[in-house]
C-alpha cells in the first residue's frame, strides 16, 4: 500500500516534469515576441531590445530553461511580463475562484447523474428519458449551452446577473453548465453499474435475507457503484481545477481558465507556465486521491493485483 503510494507519487512527479518541459518549449514555437506584445507601440529597436534584455529573452533557450527550473526548484514561478505581479500570487488569487466553480460543477453533475442513473436502472421509461438527456447534453457545445442558459435565466427571466463576476448568484449558471455537460457521463455509468448490481447474485442473496429494496440500494449497491464514480470525480476535479476555459469565458467567471487564455494571447509566458503546472498537479493529485478513496470503498482495489 505505502509502496504503491510512493510509486504513484513518483510517476506523478515525472508526469508533471514532462508537462513542464513540453509546455516550456512549445511556448517558443508560438509565433510572436513577448517584448513586442508588451510595447506594441514602440517603434525603435532599442526599446524592444531593452525589454528583451530585462526579461532574458535574448539568452539561449537552454539557459532560459535552466534559469526557469532553478527558480522553480526554489518555489518561484517568476513574474508576469504584463502585470508585473509574481505568478504565484496571481495563481493564488485565482485558484479559490476556480476551485469553487469546479467543486460546484462536480456537485451538480454527480447529484444529477447519480439520481438520473439510479432511477434509470430501476425504471425503463426513465431509462429512455436519460438516453435522450445524455444525447442532448453530450452533443451541445459548451458555449451554446452557456449562452442559452444566460439568455433564458439571465435576460428573459432575470433570475441571475448577466454581467459576470464572482459571487454566489454569479456561480449558479456556470456551475449548472458544468453540471449539465458532466451529468450524462455519470448518468450512463451509474445506470450501467446500478443495473448490474441490482440484477447480481449478491442482490438476490440480500433479497433472500429479507433486506428491503431501499436498504439494498443504499447499503448494498451504492458501495459497488461508488468506485467508478469516485474515479470520474477525481478526473473531473483535476480537469476543472486546471481551468474551465469556455465556461469561465462565457460567464465572465474570473478563474484560472480565463487567466490562462488571456496570458496565452498576451504571450505572458511565466503565467502560462504557472497555470499549466497548477493544472498538471491538480489532475494528478485528484486522480491519486480518487484512487485512495476507491480503496476505502472497494476492498478488492486494495490488493496489488487490483491496482
Amino acid at each position, binding site marked *: 500500500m505505502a509502496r504503491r503510494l510512493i510509486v504513484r507519487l513518483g510517476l506523478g512527479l515525472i508526469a508533471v516534469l514532462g508537462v513542464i518541459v513540453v509546455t516550456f518549449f512549445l511556448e517558443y514555437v508560438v509565433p510572436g515576441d513577448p517584448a513586442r506584445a508588451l510595447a506594441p507601440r514602440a517603434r525603435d529597436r532599442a526599446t524592444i531590445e531593452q525589454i528583451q534584455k530585462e526579461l532574458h529573452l535574448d539568452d539561449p533557450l537552454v539557459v532560459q530553461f535552466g534559469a526557469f527550473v532553478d527558480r522553480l526548484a526554489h518555489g518561484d514561478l517568476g513574474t508576469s511580463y504584463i502585470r508585473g505581479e509574481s505568478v504565484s500570487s496571481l495563481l493564488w488569487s485565482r485558484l479559490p475562484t476556480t476551485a469553487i466553480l469546479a467543486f460546484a460543477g462536480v456537485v451538480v453533475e454527480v447529484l444529477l447523474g447519480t439520481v438520473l442513473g439510479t432511477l434509470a436502472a430501476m425504471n425503463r421509461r426513465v431509462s429512455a428519458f436519460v438516453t435522450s438527456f445524455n444525447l442532448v447534453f453530450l452533443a451541445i457545445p459548451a458555449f451554446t449551452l452557456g449562452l442559452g442558459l444566460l439568455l433564458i435565466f439571465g435576460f428573459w427571466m432575470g433570475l441571475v446577473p448577466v454581467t459576470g463576476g464572482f459571487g454566489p448568484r454569479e456561480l449558479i449558471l456556470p456551475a449548472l453548465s458544468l453540471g449539465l455537460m458532466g451529468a450524462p457521463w455519470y448518468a450512463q455509468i451509474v445506470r450501467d453499474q446500478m443495473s448490474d448490481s441490482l440484477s447480481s*447474485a*449478491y442482490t*438476490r*442473496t440480500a*433479497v*433472500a435475507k429479507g433486506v*428491503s429494496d431501499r436498504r439494498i440500494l443504499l447499503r448494498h449497491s451504492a458501495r*459497488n457503484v461508488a468506485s467508478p464514480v469516485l474515479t470520474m470525480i477525481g478526473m473531473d476535479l483535476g480537469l476543472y481545477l486546471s481551468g474551465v476555459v469556455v465556461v469561465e469565458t462565457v460567464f465572465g467567471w474570473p478563474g484560472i481558465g480565463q487567466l490562462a487564455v488571456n496570458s496565452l494571447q498576451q504571450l505572458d509566458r511565466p503565467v502560462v507556465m504557472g497555470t499549466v503546472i497548477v493544472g498538471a498537479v491538480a489532475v494528478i493529485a485528484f486522480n491519486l486521491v480518487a484512487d485512495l478513496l476507491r480503496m476505502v470503498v472497494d*476492498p478488492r482495489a486494495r490488493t496489488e493485483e487490483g491496482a
Partner: protein
Amino acid sequence: MSDAALEARNVYVRYGGLPAVVDADLRVERGEVVALIGETGSGKSSLAFAVARLLPPGTYATGSIEIGGREIVGLVPSQMRALRGASIGYIAQDSMAALNPTTRVGWQIAEAFRIHENVGRRQSWARTVDALRRVRIAQPAEVARLYPHQLSGGMRQRVMIAMALALLPALVVADEPTTALDVSTQAEILELVMSLRTETGAGILWITHDMGVVAELADRVAVMYGGRIVEQGTAEQVFDAPLHPYSDALLKTLRDLRRGAPGSAMFQIEGQPPSLSQTISGCAFHPRCPHADERCVVEDPPVEASETRRVACHHPLVVAAVP
C-alpha cells in the same frame, strides 16, 4: 396447515404464458433433505425459486406454498420480507458472486440479525461469530472481518450456509451449492450440511443435477422433467427401484460415470430435454422414452400417489411398487 418445513401443492410457474412448472406437489419435513433433480430446463430451479419467492420480477407462482405452516402465495412484499431469511434460508450456487464483494462477510451475516430481530451492532456481531462457529469455521471472529475475495471457495460456501441458517429457518433452499467446489471441499460441505440439519432441524430443499450428491445427502428425491415432478420417493426407493423411465435413465448415466466407462460405452439419454416453448402432447418424456406407446403420446399420465411414493407414468418400471 401443516407443520412441515415445506408443503407445496398444485404449484404452477409461468414465464409470460410459457409453463415452467406444472402442477407440482412437494413436501419437505423438518430436518429432512429432499433433493430436487433434473436436467437444465426441467423446472427445478423455477420450482425452488417459487418456493423462496425469488422468481424474476413479474413472475408469480400459483397454487399453495406453505413454509413452516405459513402460506406464502399471495403475501404482499412487506410480509414476504419478514419471512425471508427468518423462515426461508437460501444458499446460492456461486458463493463468490452471491456475496457482496465490498462488505465484510460478517457484516453480511449480521445484517440478518439486524433487520429481523432489531438487535444492536455488538449483539448482532456476537451472534454472527456464533453462526460462523456453527458451520465449523475455526477462527470465526477473524473470518467475520474478511471480505469475500479473501476466502477460499469452501469457506465462502460455509459463510453462505451460516447466513442461510442464521435465524434458524424452517426451510433452506440450496441451489446447487457444491457444483462450483472441488471434490474434497464438496465432501466437507455435504458432511457439514448433514450434521447441521439434525442440529438445527431445518428442512432442506437441495437442487442439483448431480446424482452422486443425491446419493450421499438426500432422504427423499423428487425427479423433475419438462416442468413436472415425474417421480418422488425415498432415496433408497428411487435409487434401488426407479419407477419412471427417466429416473432410471438418469441413474444409468450416473452408474456409467462411476464405473468410468469409456465414452462410447456410456449410457446416454437420446434426444434433447424439451424447451419451454415446445408443447409436447401426452407425457413430456415420450419422445425420448424407450417404453413409450400411443397412449403416452396422447394422454398425460396422472400422478399415482401413496404416503411415501409418487410417479407419473403409464408404464412404470416396477409395476408391483406402484402406489
